[in-house]
């Protein structure tokens, strides 16, 4: 008899539950065997886990249409943006069926696939249901698949982007958005007139500030790891990048370390900041007169040299759902190009283009069909999105990615707050990364990283 451990206990409980459930579902199984769709025995209202707030809105906007079209509807379970990973893992580790559909950033995919938390989408249909040819290669090949299997469908295609005030640039005699980080620093310095106008702002709060570091690190030619999993962050590219970010703090609002996603939007939309690097959905808010003081005065451009693509969102089926077929229907519906194009340009959510067909300037409208920006602004915005993707730098999504990222974020934040120098912070993060790699099995990590890098090359990304 094996020893009673927590894992054995959980596994045995799950087997017992499965046996019990077998009694309840045996009729369904028989019907299924006779050719009746097993989806018919599943619930039609499905629990959709997603970070709470604006990103859940599209599910609600299209709930009625979804019900008419595919016979299912969503019940939103909102989780905090920072803390989403631990909440999902806590549920999944106990094999809870509380979620049917999981919406999460692709950097969780590596861990979730490795731990068996996700169903393959192709278990319930075909890849062709998702029109993958129309999904931009970076999202399709890097974010949705593992080991050649499709585990997720795209919901949101995030990237960082420069939003800047053309009027403030004109006044300072600056004619174009910066194309190098040295130019970016010089521009921020030239535009810095506190306390009425700040030169730039970025995500300085603990939780995601690492992304703004990686954006510069990528431009300096940095790589997450070498092929033998030696961390790349503590090299020259990393130290120089963090020093640049620390320098930019001088030309930022004094509360820069308090600035997260909503605060960064606010810093730009309230007219006090001349230039920000922010997720690309800021543009939609900046052109909305109910949210912005700068409608018609904004310019948009990709980040200098390389463009980090942090976060994004994908939809996947929980391995422990009782309703996998219907979950598939919900995901497939929300992923449709004709549905998703209605939300990726709506200022009341945070979703961004992830399909080639989304890059249509005439489609820059909210979900009701109302244009969300002028034709000229739409052209600039779509062009900045395309330009950013051309120099895109993907987010780490190998097993353990959330942990690598969390410790990097902590150390970047420590350096930003003056607790350590850039070199010290990155050396410390690098040491921690080595410990994580060892704990997760170095050989397995080397292989996972190589597969991941290979997926870039297939997607045409120069890494």
């Amino acid at each position: 008899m094996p020893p009673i451990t927590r894992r054995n206990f959980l596994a045995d409980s799950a087997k017992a539950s499965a046996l019990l459930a077998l009694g309840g579902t045996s009729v369904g199984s028989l019907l299924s065997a006779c050719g009746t769709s097993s989806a018919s025995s599943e619930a039609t209202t499905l629990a959709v886990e997603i970070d709470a707030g604006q990103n859940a809105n599209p599910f609600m906007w299209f709930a009625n249409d979804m019900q008419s079209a595919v016979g299912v509807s969503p019940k939103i379970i909102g989780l905090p943006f920072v803390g989403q990973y631990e909440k999902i893992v806590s549920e999944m580790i106990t094999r809870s069926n509380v979620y049917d559909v999981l919406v999460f950033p692709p950097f969780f995919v590596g861990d979730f696939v490795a731990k068996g938390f996700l169903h393959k989408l192709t278990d319930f249909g075909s890849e062709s249901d998702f029109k993958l040819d129309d999904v931009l290669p970076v999202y399709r090949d890097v974010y949705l698949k593992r080991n050649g299997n499709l585990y997720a469908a795209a919901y949101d295609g995030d990237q960082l982007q420069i939003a800047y005030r053309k009027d403030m640039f004109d006044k300072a005699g600056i004619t174009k958005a910066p194309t190098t980080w040295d130019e970016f620093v010089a521009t921020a310095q030239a535009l810095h007139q506190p306390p009425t106008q700040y030169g730039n702002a970025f995500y300085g709060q603990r939780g995601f500030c690492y992304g703004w570091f990686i954006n510069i690190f990528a431009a300096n030619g940095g790589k997450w790891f070498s092929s033998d999993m030696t961390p790349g962050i503590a090299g020259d590219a990393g130290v120089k990048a963090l020093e640049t970010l620390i320098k930019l703090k001088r030309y930022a609002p004094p509360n820069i370390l308090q600035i997260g996603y909503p605060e960064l939007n606010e810093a730009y939309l309230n007219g006090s900041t001349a230039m920000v690097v922010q997720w690309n959905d800021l543009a939609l808010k900046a052109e909305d007169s109910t949210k912005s003081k700068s409608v018609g005065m904004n310019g948009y451009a990709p980040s200098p040299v390389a463009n980090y693509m942090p976060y994004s969102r994908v939809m996947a089926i929980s391995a422990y759902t009782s309703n996998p077929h219907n979950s598939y229907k919900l995901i497939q519906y929300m992923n449709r190009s004709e549905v998703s194009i209605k939300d990726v340009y709506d200022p009341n959510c945070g979703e961004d283009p992830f399909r080639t067909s989304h890059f249509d300037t005439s489609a820059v409208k909210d979900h009701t069909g109302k244009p969300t920006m002028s034709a000229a602004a739409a052209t600039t915005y779509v062009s900045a999105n395309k330009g950013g993707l051309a120099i895109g730098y993907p987010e780490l999504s190998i097993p353990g990615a959330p942990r690598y990222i969390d410790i990097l974020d902590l150390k970047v934040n420590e350096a930003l707050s003056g607790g350590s120098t850039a070199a010290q912070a990155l050396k410390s993060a690098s040491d921690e990364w080595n410990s994580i790699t060892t704990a997760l099995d170095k050989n397995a990590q080397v292989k996972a990283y190589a597969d991941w890098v290979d997926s870039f090359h297939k997607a045409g990304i120069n890494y």
Partner: protein
Amino acid sequence: MAAVVGRRRASGGGRRFALLTVAPATLLLVGISIFPLLWALRLSFMQDSLLSVATPHFIGVDNYAHLFHDPLFWSSLGVTAVFAVSVITIQLVAGLAIALALDRLPRYQQVIATILLIPSILSPSVVSFQWRQLFDYYSGPLNYFLGLLHLPLQGWTASARGALPALVLVDFWEWTPFMVLLMFAGIKSLPRSVFEAARIDGSSGWQVTIFQTIPLLRRVIAIAVILRLIGAFKIFDIIYSLTAGGPGTSTESLAFYTYVQGFRYFDLGYSTAMAFVTLILITVLARLILGFMERPIGRSVA
């Protein structure tokens, strides 16, 4: 006679009856309190990470040894100590002062005491949200008033030096009323004759407070300090919502760091070891405080 009968009962069938009577409560206690505690203690000696490929295994005191070499553990302990000393000192002094003032009010004591309860019964997430608004750099009322006074605006939780005092301020707002109520209840329970005698002997109000009221309140003060000490060591919610432990690790408390290890990194063995060290620290400190408060303290209280 009754005692004899009682003793006889206890030595016979009565003992079985007594055991049967206490058995359900004992089983419940063992089941929901002692067993999980022992299970957790066992876990603290294991290498057990839910996201690791390695099978959980016994590693002796390695988790505890690692703690002593973990700079983040020491910095979180430092943050917790500074936070605990700050909030307990400020809340004790303010709580006692307000309770004494409240005691001297001729009317409305109950009404005020009820109103004072409000911050303490609010959900910590609501408290955090409300303070997040108050601290907001652009639209928060605190900066609005600073602006009116032509003072520089503050990023209240935006600097490593300012964030912890901001959390102390939030905790002060939330828990000082609780301290006031404890002190107020303590003052109300004191024998009035002692104060009257002191006044007849010519003591001033200040002398009565210092030499009579506070010494007589020492047990209440000890309980209040221990309760707030436990609260301060467990501080997590407002940190999670307001600063997420940042900037850097300037507000990363022991409880927050334990959470990060346990629920973000899923390193169950290590985080449990940390929780046990916290438990030992609180127990030792509580024992010291109780011992200190129970020492005889001079003639005036005799």
